[in-house]
């Protein structure tokens, strides 16, 4: 694409096309967007995070990641659309522009690049990382079971050949460890949203225990507002609640760890659909999915901005 204006957001793209999109966005918006490399994947691919900032130092920040499960293609595609939306809102002084006056936004679009490349070359249904651990006859760890929050407990598998294999130890996956290190070193992230598909759910901690989080009521109220905003666009129906009560027990999950790190506004989205196409959502649904999700994300980001802690 010649520019992020001519880029085709209504299509799925290769890893290289997404990387070049990022470079174009940075080049077009040098005073707002920068590209950080927070680590390298198992197969030594860069782990890029886009930073959107209007200045200041170590401002309170919002983190959004997509694509941690590589086959959930609508999430990386939505992440690309989110990146452009942030830039456009800032240029038009609308939407999240007001958030950027006091907060930074970090967006990791391809959180599992090895898995993503593998879905495009070898196995479209690949979900995990591509790590090889001694003693494992199978490849890959579920990056959403590898965090140090109830790690290894019920709701993950110790079998390296299963899709929910938690890995040999917490943070064994560089894709996970890089985010852990970034969150710890930044130290001022106030909202953390990890985006998956499918099922149309908005979830908050915990997944590894039935114990409600101390902020359960507030997170539930935010979820209700976010889902109402999301559904207002196309009527897409979402359910919401804690991970363990809404779907199932899942240990070693991303937002359980981020919540336990003190990031109160920790959420997971499960995007479209509810089971017609599943992971094979047609490309024509990318933009409507991204648009409606953005309305839900905005509720969470505005709440974080207005309820600083």
């Amino acid at each position, binding site marked *: 694409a010649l520019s992020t204006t001519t880029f085709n957001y209504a299509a799925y793209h290769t890893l290289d096309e997404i990387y070049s999109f990022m470079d174009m966005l940075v080049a077009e918006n040098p005073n707002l967007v920068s590209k950080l490399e927070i680590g390298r994947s198992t197969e030594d691919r860069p782990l890029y995070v886009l930073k959107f900032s209007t200045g200041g130092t170590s401002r309170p920040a919002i983190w959004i990641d997509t694509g941690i499960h590589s086959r959930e293609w609508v999430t990386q595609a939505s992440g690309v659309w989110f990146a452009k939306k942030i830039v456009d809102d800032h240029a038009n002084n609308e939407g999240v522009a007001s958030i950027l006056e006091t907060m930074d936004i970090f967006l990791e679009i391809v959180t599992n690049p090895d898995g993503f490349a593998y879905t495009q070359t070898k196995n479209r249904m690949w979900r995990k990382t591509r790590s090889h651990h001694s003693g494992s006859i199978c490849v890959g760890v579920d990056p959403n079971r590898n965090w140090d929050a109830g790690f290894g407990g019920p709701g993950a598998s110790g079998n390296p050949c299963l899709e929910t294999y938690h890995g040999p130890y917490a943070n064994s996956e560089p894709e996970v460890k890089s985010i852990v290190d970034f969150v710890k070193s930044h130290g001022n992230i106030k909202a953390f949203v990890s985006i998956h598909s499918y099922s149309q759910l908005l979830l908050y901690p915990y997944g590894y225990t039935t114990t409600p989080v101390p902020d359960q009521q507030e997170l539930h109220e935010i979820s209700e507002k976010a889902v109402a905003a999301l559904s207002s666009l196309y009527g897409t129906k979402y359910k919401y609640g804690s991970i363990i009560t809404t779907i199932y027990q899942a240990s070693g999950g991303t937002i359980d760890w981020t919540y336990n790190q003190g990031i109160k506004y920790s959420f997971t989205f499960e995007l479209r659909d509810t089971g017609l196409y*599943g992971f094979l959502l047609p490309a024509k649904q990318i933009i409507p999915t991204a648009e409606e999700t953005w309305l839900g994300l905005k509720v969470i980001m505005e709440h974080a901005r207005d309820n600083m802690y």
Partner: protein
Amino acid sequence: TETFVGHQVLRIVPSSDEELQKVQELQDLEHLKLDFWLSPRGLGYPVDIRVPFPSLQSVKAHLEASGVPYSIMIEDVQALVDEEEMEMLRSSRQL
């Protein structure tokens, strides 16, 4: 490259503990190489399973013998993957 010719995605909505248990039994049969897109989570919640063609007959027989109703969410996974690939090619050409 892995192909998915003849693979189907079956949807089961367990409505009793017995049905849920029959579905969970499938999770332990690794030789069937089932890919749980949505894992069993409770009564009334959909379970979506991508079933490789070689396992299709035995899985359907297992469900039918146990009286567990199921529907076919995706008739042919490869057909959707092919369609997606065509779309990407078209888009790349446009680029």
